[in-house]
């Protein structure tokens, strides 16, 4: 994959993001934040790959990265669910 390709993906994704996020009502902005927080835990993919890097350094950096990213994913999705569960109609 070359530079232009991934740049295209990046720019299109930003536009999609703006498009869908402006439709989220203010009532749900906190869950949106914690939920997108969980999504930024996608760094876990990079962290898993990083553990493959040779040497002690790679292992340690990878391990800490996996821990951080997992906290984000697990904590983010769980707390978002906990909040959304509370939103009830009359």
């Amino acid at each position, binding site marked *: 994959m070359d530079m232009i390709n991934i740049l295209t993906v990046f720019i299109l994704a930003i536009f999609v993001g703006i498009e869908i996020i402006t439709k989220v009502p203010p*009532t749900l*902005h906190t869950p*949106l934040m914690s939920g997108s*927080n969980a999504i930024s835990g996608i760094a876990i993919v990079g962290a*898993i790959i990083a553990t493959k890097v040779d040497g002690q350094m790679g292992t340690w950096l990878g391990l800490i*990265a996996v821990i*951080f990213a997992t906290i984000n994913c697990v904590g*983010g999705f*769980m707390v978002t669910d906990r909040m959304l569960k509370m939103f009830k109609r009359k």
Partner: protein
Amino acid sequence: MIDYTNLSYVLAAILFIVGIKRLSSPKTARNGNAIASVGMLIAIVATLVSDGNMDYQTIAIGMIIGAIIGAFFAIKVEMTQMPQMVAIFNGFGGGASALVAAAEYLNPAKNPSTFNAATIVLAVLVGTLTFTGSFIAFGKLQGFISGKPIVFKGQKFLNAIIAIILVGMGILVIFQASTGLENFYGLIIFAAILGITLIIPIGGADMPVVISLLNSYSGLAAAATGFVLMNNGLIISGSLVGASGLILTNIMCKGMNRSLANVIFGAVGLEAPSSSGKGKQINVKSSTTEEAAMILDAADKVIVVPGYGLAVAQAQHAVREVAEQLELMGKTVLYAIHPVAGRMPGHMNVLLAEANIPYDHLKDLKDINPEFETCDVAIVLGANDVVNPAARHDTSSPIYGMPILDVDKSRTVIVNKRTMNPGFAGIQNELFGFENTVMVFGDAKEMLTTLYKDLKEL
């Protein structure tokens, strides 16, 4: 041969987008969150099986530790503490991205190209800055560090110097990628320092903007890591988060009528700004809950305006009791939520939802303002600057131009406050002296509990 790993990332990205789309209504939101989490699971599994040579032991240890910590926070956190939680999670996200990029740079098996080195520098820079900045934001919100802006002489100059050093080191790393590591380590250290020095001068009231901004940075750091690893999954997901954070930052800035630059470099809240309203003597009418109950008895339409003071007093449940009693008496009750009512975007809505207040009664600024014209009683609970009419007409007021809730247009305004102390912006509120305003002093929870009893005894 089909590239199943990248195909899975596309699937994960689709699920993230569908998940966020379903956040457009509280009815579908919970399901949307579940869909996004499935997307994450797919991305993780796809990565794990993409290569047989994984260090599965390290990964398993990391995931177990991370899952325990994450679940613990998610279950234990109080809803009032959500801003802190999101702040620290932003930090972990940024930190993870910086670490991944660093590992890639230090990989002896690879000799990064100029483009590659540039993306690494970007990911490390944004990720590290987000990491330390988020911890400062967390410390301020949790009260470990003073919520007041910490400023000193030459602060902007120092930040500028650090920024210049970072740019210089970044360029050195990008173009001399094969020489020693001191520039790279220097880059990390100075990015960490910049994260701290950028956030310490920002006051507690401006934290909603800061958290939104750091949220955006954590996404952009993940996207930058995607560029490092040439991984579409990371790029798409990171961009979504980056866009989300930027939009929320913008909404928060508009809610306070401030520019982003003013929030970051303004250090508001340090000293009470001099204002024309300050010198004026305001004559307030102090009243009792019994009188408030009688005023409410004669009303048809009531709008509750909750401020952060309400959450501090833990009075959300007491509000619901009063509202339910009023509804029993045949009155319409709505809630007016200002964009910066809480400590993060949408915070007040979550606090009220936790108290079982139906979300369809919560109205945002745009929808509720026309309603005040036909409103009999507006009850202002622990809110101050967001209901100050000076924002509409007093050009010398520091909050001039800030969008406010037009409570003064109601027939009667009942204001509950602990004392006559001015709000965050340090200015007196002329609303309190208006002809149609009555003040009921006291703790919000105690006041509402007594008001509830008085309403029942009518």
